[in-house]
């Protein structure tokens, strides 16, 4: 049997609430510590305790760490999902199970490893009886470690991290792992080909979840006020603010430069955040789809009242019950057109945890520069799962506070200013904030119906003028939002557009299309709405552009089609929203299903200025050009490989 090294997926089936997350994270971190690119995805039900839940781990030497739809190794700890778990093992794979589950083994094409979980745990007199179930999960950690070759030292390091150095739980869990590994060594005979071997591909990388990253980024962005209401999968973002703010913003006098308020609901959370943004604070709220629905009226008012505020939407499937703990990119069009009346949103779309951090601080800059709500759309997969990533980078620009006038400014202007007067011609007007003591500072804020001096009016001409300015302001926003990231391949004839958490799956699919289907595709990961020039340039390059997203209706495709109506026929939707983190399999299949080979298509792909690999596609040029501009400091071009 030929060894398969550093290229397989593991899935663990347990009962929700049985404490398996410690075990799963320990495996994940240990593999990461071994230098092997890895991802871990918690696929959990809406439930506190009892329902089946799964944890999927993928290790891949080439850096393809999107969720795989094939599982070579399956660990079954839950009798309720035993049959399903057994059936899910890939042919030639391995099946580990707790031997107290007495159910028939119906497969002969896989390796089967029963584990005496209860016996091993009972054998350790130091484990209190009420901890046995929890610690029982460590048996599969130990057995697996022994059988596939996870270094016990890295496991120990992962436990030290997890238990924050507390010796008692570290020892209790590690002793069980060692006992299980010892048992496996003596009693199990390796019958499958799957092994891990140390690599050096995670050096310098970090492992973090997007919600924590977003919270940290917000803190580095000078967050002053956050209001929130508990909702999966967004709660841990606000909880991370509470966890890290005291450490990152300490003061000798013990006083606070910030406030985090748990509101009574999302209606109030957004109201508070908008109040704080209006009064000059860097203010945010974090929620998921149902909460965003509740926030829509206030967000719409903030668009018209021109209040800077940051709204994180960690997307899930909704509404109401059903699949609320499953990931989605289903809120895009809703966020884009949120609010009644005409409105258009500024939306940032982070594609990984490092970007959750970066957009954490950058969103405040954009919101204050444009004086409008900025929506940051992450999702459950990115928000709650541990992702491998480049380290967080310190903000490379000072805080951009936008056009705010204080007492001395008003004295210089002799009080002569207008809240909605477009002095600079960019649609963005000057504002004052409460606490300004200049007698000409104050103005009265309302949604619609104000003149350039914020006085009440129902005059139609004034209304139209204001609406035109808001439109202009949205154009101005294009120069403040992040450019897309472009991945090119030599001789690419088609384009792929995606956003957010699907990047790893798309990169893998694009690689497979090239290697196995002979289709070369350039991939543009859009990072903001409104679209920047680089997006326009990319779209101009191909007559087939596959828009990949995790929803049913192809929401990004809808928005692109509305923005580029003359190109709408070139967009082909690859939309798939099953609640699971994106997988290359459906991305590739979706593209193949709609792909028209150049011979059959009416027009040829437009010729490009030169070989894409040389970095001379117009899109790439544009991206580079803009990335040198004042506000654009992000790298717009990356190598095609998922890791470096």
């Amino acid at each position: 049997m030929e060894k398969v090294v550093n290229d397989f997926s593991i899935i663990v089936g347990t009962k929700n609430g049985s404490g398996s997350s410690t075990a799963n994270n320990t495996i994940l971190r240990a593999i990461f510590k071994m230098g092997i690119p890895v991802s871990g995805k918690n696929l959990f039900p809406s439930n506190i305790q009892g329902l089946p839940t799964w944890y999927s781990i993928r290790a891949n030497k080439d850096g393809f760490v999107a969720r795989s739809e094939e599982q070579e190794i399956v660990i079954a700890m839950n009798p309720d999902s035993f049959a399903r778990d057994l059936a899910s093992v890939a042919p030639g794979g391995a099946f580990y199970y707790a031997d107290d589950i007495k159910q028939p083994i119906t497969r002969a094409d896989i390796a089967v490893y029963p584990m005496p979980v209860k016996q091993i745990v009972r054998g350790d007199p130091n484990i209190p009886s009420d901890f046995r179930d929890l610690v029982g999960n460590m048996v599969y950690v130990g057995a697996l470690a022994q059988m596939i070759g996870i270094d016990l030292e890295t496991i120990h390091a992962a436990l030290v991290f997890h238990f924050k150095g507390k010796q008692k739980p570290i020892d209790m869990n590690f002793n069980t792992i060692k006992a299980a590994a010892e048992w496996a060594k003596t009693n199990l005979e390796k019958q499958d080909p799957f092994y891990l071997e140390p690599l050096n591909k995670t050096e310098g990388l970090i492992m973090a979840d997007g919600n924590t990253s977003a919270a940290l980024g917000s803190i580095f962005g000078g967050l002053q006020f956050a209001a929130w209401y508990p909702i999966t999968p967004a709660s841990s973002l606000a909880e991370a603010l509470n966890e890290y703010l005291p450490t990152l913003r300490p003061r000798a006098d013990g006083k606070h430069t910030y406030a985090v308020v748990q509101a009574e609901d999302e209606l109030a959370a957004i109201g508070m955040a908008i109040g704080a943004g209006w009064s000059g604070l860097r203010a945010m709220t974090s929620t998921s789809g149902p909460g965003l629905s509740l926030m829509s009226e206030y967000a719409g008012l903030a668009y018209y009242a021109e209040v800077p505020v940051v709204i994180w939407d960690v997307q899930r499937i909704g509404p109401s019950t059903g699949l609320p703990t499953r990931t989605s990119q289903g809120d895009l069009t809703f966020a884009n057109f949120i609010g009644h009346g005409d409105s258009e949103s500024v939306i940032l779309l982070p594609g990984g945890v490092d970007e959750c951090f970066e957009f954490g601080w950058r969103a405040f800059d954009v919101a204050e520069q444009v004086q409008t709500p900025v929506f940051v759309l992450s999702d459950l997969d990115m928000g709650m799962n541990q992702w491998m990533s480049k380290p967080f980078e310190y903000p490379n620009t000072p805080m951009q506070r936008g056009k705010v006038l204080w007492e001395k400014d008003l004295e210089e202007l002799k009080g002569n200013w207008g809240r909605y007067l477009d002095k600079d011609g960019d649609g963005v007007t000057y504002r004052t904030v409460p606490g300004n003591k200049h007698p000409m500072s104050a103005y009265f804020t309302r949604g619609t119906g104000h003149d350039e001096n914020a006085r009440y009016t129902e005059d139609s001409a004034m209304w139209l003028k204001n609406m035109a300015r808001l439109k202009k302001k949205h154009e101005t926003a294009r120069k403040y939002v992040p450019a897309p990231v472009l991945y090119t391949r030599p001789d690419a004839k088609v384009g792929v557009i995606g956003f957010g958490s699907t990047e790893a799956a798309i990169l893998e699919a694009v690689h497979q299309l090239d290697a196995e289907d002979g289709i070369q595709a350039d991939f543009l990961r859009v990072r903001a709405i409104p679209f920047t020039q680089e997006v326009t340039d990319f779209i101009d390059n191909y007559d087939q552009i596959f828009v990949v997203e995790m929803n049913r209706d192809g929401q990004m495709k809808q928005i692109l089609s509305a923005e580029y109506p003359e190109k709408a026929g070139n967009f082909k939707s690859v939309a798939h929203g099953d609640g699971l983190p994106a997988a290359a399999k459906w991305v590739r299949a979706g593209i193949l299903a709609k792909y028209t080979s150049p011979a059959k298509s009416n027009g040829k792909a437009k010729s490009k200025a030169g070989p894409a690999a040389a970095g001379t596609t117009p899109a790439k040029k544009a991206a580079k050009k803009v990335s040198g501009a004042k506000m654009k400091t992000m790298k717009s071009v990356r190598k095609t490989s998922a890791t470096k």
Partner: protein
Amino acid sequence: MTQPLPMAGTPANVNLAGLAKNDYRGNPSTLCQGCGHNSISNQIISAMYEMNIVPENVVKFSGIGCSSKSPTYFLSRAFGFNGLHGRMPSLATGALFGDHTLKGLGVSGDGDTASIGMGQFKHVIRRNVNMVYIVENNGVYGLTKGQFSATAEKGLSLKHQGSNQYMPVDICMEALASNATFIARSFAGNPKQVKEILKAAMAHKGIAVLDIISPCVTFNNQDNAYHSYSWGKDHEEPLHDISYIAPRSEIILEEELKAGEVREVDMHDGSVIVLKNLEKDYNPTDRFEAIRVLAEAQANNWLATGLIYIETDKPSLTDMHNLVDTPLNRLAEADLRPVREMIDKINALMF
């Protein structure tokens, strides 16, 4: 801004803040002639002027409805935000974190507060946000032309609406149940009392809920309607004569010091609320007394007005958050962005 000190030659119509009454006014009201809300706006102007409050130190908030339009009719030199229906409280809660030295002044109505706004009303109270929350209570929706509000009494008949079948919401009782630290009820037809209560409310640290019966002359001013001028005049029973005495003023007249006749409430800023007893001695620091007097008023068809309940020693929301002395909205990048070295420490934690 330095305020000119009062001195010989200062015009008589300028207060200790150096401001004339006109400095406290706003745009002309667009509400109906005789609307109770206009009377309240006028008392706000007078109270602020007499208290020497600098308008820039007040922030106005409102929701939606006739009452919520009124913040443009006073204090045009104060910032204001006209928010969404029933959601003025959350807006104020967030905005007052911008500068904790400012006082919030919210104006809402019974439609805005007692229906969609009930949740936010109760929560802004339990957080003890440092603001005056006025409910201009007329039992009817004015801007939408005369529908019942949730404070309309059972049996009230309105044109096109028939007879109200539901029990009314008692704003003061709701405030008390939510642990408000200052609760008063007044009547727009009693402007002197409105003004004194406003002053006391402005001096209070934390939330001050003022339920002011403010008749709607267009849709709900029938003689027998609970929220009408004539009913109010016939049924008002003040709990006391209330006067607000500013800090460091020579306050109490000798004859009023007689035991049992006068009750004083010391405010945190050194001011004093003097409550002169009328028929009975009423103790507004006793929660059970407050519940009793509200229940009795309900049962006996009284319009019990005055200071219903007060607690002067509770921290406000911004106190609870232990904020720095400098207003948050004046902090600079150095106060807000962690230093560069912290990024490595954070990355080291991400494993």
